[in-house]
């Protein structure tokens, strides 16, 4: 095991895959000379050269489209869309094209692209602070991966690159400096597998992406109060690996879903529906949900701090679900 940052873990996965397969190439704004707006691809231009590390114009639609077309030709593009707020400018290419080609053309065409993008916030105001994973997770034909730890990021970026389908890989600007252990040997994780990050028997907490850390913090604090929470990290939103969630809820009889995005029509809404469909007879309390306040995020620090939940809100929701004061 080596300790590395989330940034280094993504970079390691990318680098290994680029060394392994000449068809893997990176394109996006500022990925080359700058080294990536969040410095993930720093040094890549020197190692792989400008043919495989391509700075693009500011043109999200063309970046995604070029990835798609070259993937149809057998390349393995990793398109970086600087943040998820700008990724939605490419939603036509990703949603109307990448997600559709294989099925609509009856399997004749494949589209093995990876779109890397970053969610996150931090006094960036309404247009630059969004958690929009559900926009992508809604679309059949796409795979949506959202790792929260360095090891998961390393293992899943490699799997995403090898995957034959279009994968949207969502990082988080607030995770890049977070450190943890990553196995030294080559490390691949399957897409579509959730992970039990902590075992417990009183309540099931489900999360993904950055919020997994707030959830784990909450679980640790709950332990001091005698509550053993099980924490499930979905890691992939589509295809959703629901069975571990169902198995956990059948054991604990209680669930709280924790997300960074807005409550209404979010991933948590889908999960809550699935839990009541599949675990109705096992539930001892309504499924709890913790999510962002339903407002566009403001710039001002104290206002922004009110919008995104953390461990205190998760603990409160868990206690409510446990009928504890």
């Amino acid at each position, binding site marked *: 095991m080596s300790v590395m940052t989330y940034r280094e873990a993504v970079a390691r996965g990318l680098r290994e895959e680029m060394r392994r397969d000449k068809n893997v190439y990176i394109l996006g704004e500022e990925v080359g000379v700058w080294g990536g707006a969040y410095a993930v691809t720093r040094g890549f231009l020197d190692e792989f050269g400008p043919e495989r590390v391509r700075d693009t114009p500011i043109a999200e639609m063309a970046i995604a489209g070029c990835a798609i077309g070259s993937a149809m030709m057998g390349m393995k593009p990793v398109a970086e869309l600087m943040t998820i707020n700008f990724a939605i400018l490419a939603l036509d290419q990703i949603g109307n094209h990448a997600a559709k080609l294989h099925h609509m053309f009856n399997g004749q065409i494949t589209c093995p692209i990876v779109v890397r993008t970053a969610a996150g916030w931090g006094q960036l105001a309404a*247009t630059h602070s969004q958690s929009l994973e559900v926009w992508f997770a809604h679309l059949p034909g796409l795979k949506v991966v959202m790792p929260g730890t360095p090891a998961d990021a390393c293992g899943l970026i490699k799997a995403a690159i090898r995957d034959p389908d279009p994968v949207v890989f969502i990082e988080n600007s607030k995770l890049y400096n977070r450190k943890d252990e990553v196995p030294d040997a080559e490390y691949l994780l399957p897409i579509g597998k959730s992970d039990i990050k902590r075992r417990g028997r009183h309540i099931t907490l489900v999360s993904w992406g950055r919020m997994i850390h707030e959830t784990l913090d909450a679980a640790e604090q709950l332990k001091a109060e005698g509550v053993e929470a099980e924490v499930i990290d979905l890691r992939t939103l589509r295809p959703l690996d629901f069975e571990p969630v169902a198995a956990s809820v059948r054991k604990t009889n209680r669930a709280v879903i924790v997300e960074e995005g807005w409550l209404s029509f979010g991933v948590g809404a889908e999960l809550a529906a699935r839990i009541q469909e599949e675990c109705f007879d096992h539930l001892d309390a309504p499924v709890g949900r913790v999510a962002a306040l339903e407002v566009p995020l403001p*710039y*001002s*620090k*104290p206002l922004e701090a009110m919008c995104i939940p953390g461990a205190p809100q998760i603990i409160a929701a868990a206690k409510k679900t446990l009928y504890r004061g």
Partner: protein
Amino acid sequence: MLLDSHTARAWYRQMRLIRVFEERAAQEYAKGHIGGFCHLYIGQEAVAVGAFAALQPQDHIITHYREHGHAIARGMDINGVMAELFGKATGVTGGRGGSMHLVDKDLHFWGGHAIVGGHLPIATGIAFGLKQQGGDGVVLCIFGDGASNIGMFHESLNLAAVWKLPVIFLCENNRYGMGTAVARASAVTNIRDKAQAYNIPGTDVDGQDPEAVYETMQNAVSHARAGKGPVLVEAETYRFVGHSMGDPERYRTKEERKEWQDHGDPINRFRRSLEERAIVTAEEFAGMDAEVDQQVEAAARFAHESPFPAGETLHRHIYVESAGGQP
């Protein structure tokens, strides 16, 4: 150009005000009083001052996120702008928008916008509104060289041209979009030449010279005001500082930047030219410099002393309140 002393002093003072304001913003950022993205305009001041001098009160402005200079040139209250950067209740959006989203509807300043290219289509709509409603106002839409490569630029120029909308598209070509030099991202390196694709006039101007910018913009504004449709103006300029705060600037040499700072500083150049032409005296410059310093000091004090917005305000204006304010 024949510049009277009153105008010359006003322009110099405004350029200096933008510069000193932003130098102060950089200091406050370093101390943690300002957060998030903060894109400084240092080096480009002559574009704002020359361009806004060619506008009338009935005209409208929409711009991008590097807009402190645009806001100040339009006469936005600098106390409110500094307080906005601090995220305070007294800021021009009450702390909601921050540096990238300055707004003042009374000044017809329809916002800084931070999605690259996102405001160009909106500029066509403002111009369409003006045209349909029969006023003689025009729209000034400002963006960078990098923004001229995104689809929205092309869709907007085409629509504005087909419908002969009164809008001036002003591209501040500061040579880079983040770290990407123009020639690395644009097949046409003279941004003004992109006007040819839409059969509208395209001109360029020395963006370090407020008099030249003013004259070029006067022509562009007259063209649009006369109902002849849109114009693309390219102001050639240079950003003396990083893209935002904390830019390692690996994409350009120190020598290149120094060359511009030494020989292309718009404020020094204008001052020297006014001195040579004996339009403004040394005492007048000294007086203005002192006034500007005090004004910025007062703005910083105002921002420091202002309260943060109250938590309850967060839920206001998600929907129009006279309509109930709720979804």
